[in-house]
């Protein structure tokens, strides 16, 4: 089994260095304003292998185009792109680390970065940029790349989340305001639940997406995953138990029973298929609505709260691996990937929030109401804790949520069991 996978991955990633004609005399300098202090990119031809997480058509068209533009600026660097599905990304990276078949550069979910650092495969970036460089990024995004006093990646995508609701249905039922509190959310969701349609599209498939969905409820009730110093689980506190009890109630009262197997994509599809009145998604969703249900009358509002406003802020990174043999070229590419122009293009293309400070004041961004909303809630965005064990903690929480939804355990029992497992993990 293992051997087979090894073979499979190694052959899949074996690179054939493409020889490209290089007309010499090209200034190989970085095509943007900031001086990295390391501007002696080699004159010889280099082939970089780059993985991009995400496989849908929007991702592909954007990244293909970016690589083409990069190649025009840097004719001596050829970039070979591989698109990896999000749900396989983590295991592909980990398996490749074990087999020494990592690419030079990869985009990576911020929640995986510390784990990869602990495996000693990520290249620290501190020596590649000058002091002023971090200032160009939005603090909240830049901070997610910091672990144990070093920088392990550059921000490459930043999103917050909000509650999408069917404005037309609300109107039919005579509901004037979208729900702002937990009680209102439950009440409103029940109104729409009649066996044909449901109030809320919930995620309960026991994967990381389940945690993504539940986390804002935990934070919105004043709870947290871990203690400040990240040595102990606290998600089984009173606040956490209440949050899971509420989530379970929402599932039983106002969500399809099958949500227990639903991923985030499934809940989005239910929303698009006129089956649910509300669900929580990130800023890429309006694009999907435009394509699949162009006439839909929807609204976006903040997460309903109990104690404090909170939503999930996630950052994607672009990281270099220390096995790379072309680190200079890799850095040149990363710098290009995350420059101001590309950040803005990406924000407009995909609906992500700009991670470069300069773009926060861009007119087009500010005038797009959906975009303005997601920018606005960024103030309340909370990120996951940064530690190598996070993916395992994430999984333990997701299992606990699913067990509570199934009724296999009470919310309190499920969270206590998960906390016990997490504490054991953190002690080792």
């Amino acid at each position, binding site marked *: *089994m*293992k*051997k*087979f*996978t090894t073979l499979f991955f190694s052959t899949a990633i074996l690179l054939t260095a493409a020889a490209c004609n290089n007309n010499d005399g090209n200034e190989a300098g970085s095509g943007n304003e900031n001086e990295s202090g390391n501007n002696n990119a080699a004159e010889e031809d280099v082939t970089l292998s780059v993985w991009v997480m995400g496989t849908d058509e929007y991702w592909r068209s954007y990244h293909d185009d970016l690589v083409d533009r990069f190649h025009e600026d840097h004719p001596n660097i050829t970039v070979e792109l591989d698109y990896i599905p999000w749900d396989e990304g983590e*295991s592909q990276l*980990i*398996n490749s*680390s*074990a087999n020494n078949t990592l690419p030079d550069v990869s985009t990576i979910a911020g929640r995986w970065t510390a*784990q990869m650092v*602990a*495996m*000693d495969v990520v290249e620290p970036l501190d020596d590649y940029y000058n002091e002023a460089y971090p200032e160009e990024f939005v603090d909240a995004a830049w901070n997610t790349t910091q672990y144990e006093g070093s920088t392990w990646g550059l921000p490459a995508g930043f999103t917050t989340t909000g509650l999408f609701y069917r404005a037309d249905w609300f109107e039919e039922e005579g509901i004037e305001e979208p729900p702002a509190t937990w009680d209102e959310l439950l009440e409103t969701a029940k109104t729409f639940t009649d*066996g044909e349609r449901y109030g809320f599209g919930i995620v309960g*498939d*026991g994967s990381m997406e389940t945690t993504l969905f539940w986390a804002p409820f935990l934070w919105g009730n004043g709870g947290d995953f871990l203690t400040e110093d990240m040595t102990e689980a606290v998600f089984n506190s009173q606040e956490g138990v209440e949050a899971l009890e509420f989530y379970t109630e929402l599932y039983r009262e106002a969500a*399809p*029973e*099958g*949500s*227990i*197997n639903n991923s985030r994509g499934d809940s989005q599809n*239910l929303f698009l*298929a006129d*089956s649910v009145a509300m669900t929580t998604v990130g800023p890429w969703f309006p694009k999907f609505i435009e394509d699949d249900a162009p006439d839909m009358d929807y609204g976006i509002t903040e997460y309903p709260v109990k104690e404090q406003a909170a939503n999930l802020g996630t950052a994607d990174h672009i990281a270099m691996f220390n096995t790379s043999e072309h680190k200079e070229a890799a850095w040149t590419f990363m710098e290009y990937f995350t420059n101001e122009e590309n950040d803005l293009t990406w924000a407009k293309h995909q609906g992500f929030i700009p991670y470069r400070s300069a773009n926060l004041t861009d007119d087009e961004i500010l005038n797009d109401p959906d975009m303005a909303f997601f920018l606005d809630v960024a103030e309340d965005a909370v990120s996951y804790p940064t530690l*190598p064990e996070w*993916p*395992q903690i994430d*999984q333990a929480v997701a*299992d606990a949520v*699913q*067990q509570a939804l*199934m009724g*296999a355990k009470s919310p309190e029992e499920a969270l206590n069991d998960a906390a016990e497992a997490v504490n054991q993990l953190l002690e080792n």
Partner: protein
Amino acid sequence: MRKKDNLTGFLFILPALIVLLTVVFYPLLWTFWLSFQEKILIAPQRDGFIGVEHYQGIFQSDVFWRFLGITLIFTLSSVAIKIIFGLVGALLLNKNHPGTNVYWSILVIPWLIPSVVGALIWRWMLHEQFGIINRVFVHLGVLESAVPWLSREFTALLSVIIVDAWVGLPFMIIVFLAGLKTIPSTLYEAAKVDGAGFFQQLRFVTIPGLKSVLLVMGTLSLIGTFNSFNIIYAMTGGGPVNATNTLVIHIYRTAFTQYNFGLASALAVVTFIIISCFVIFYIRQLDKEGEM
């Protein structure tokens, strides 16, 4: 002369032997070796030899016994369905009714499509909101409201058993059909003369005539179903809350979602030993065949 013959023979099987050694024995030994190691991909600093610790852990945890139980329920139910319906199907197709060919063409469909595709189609058919099965049952009044088949423990296990049997049935029917053709019609004629009805013919002629085929197919099917991975993986991934987590799925998840290759290897070795018992039984059956 004799020696030379041996050498020539050996040279002839050498290519096949090399392939076997590299693709079967090497991974097998490697897995066995790994099962005595701590090897967690995400914690490389903890790698090292730990002896039989994994094995102790496996037999002491109730998790293993629970998943073994699920595996046995899944395997035995699926094989029983395949054998019973395989026999019924073969008996029906053995007579030359009009339209036998049409039936036959419909019956082989599950065998012809890739099993993962079949599993995904079933997953959609069983879907709570979009699934046709709920639509039909609710419409006919069999169900009051739609059932999320794959979201409840019992129905999820039932669903994967049925789909696994559905995929394996056509092959069963083919083999039984071939077996039926080998029973001399004179036996049936003699039975009829003695006044045997349909069920007596089945009991005293058909089943004994198919005995060896039944045994061999039964064991083969047991081994295959015990190792069935893709259908469960594509339909439920072992969920909800481990309700369909058979040992094979459990091994996969230990290795590829927890990255614990040492423990996964130990589990694989244990499963290998369980399946070996089936195989030994199967080989004995084959030997008996030879004596007949």
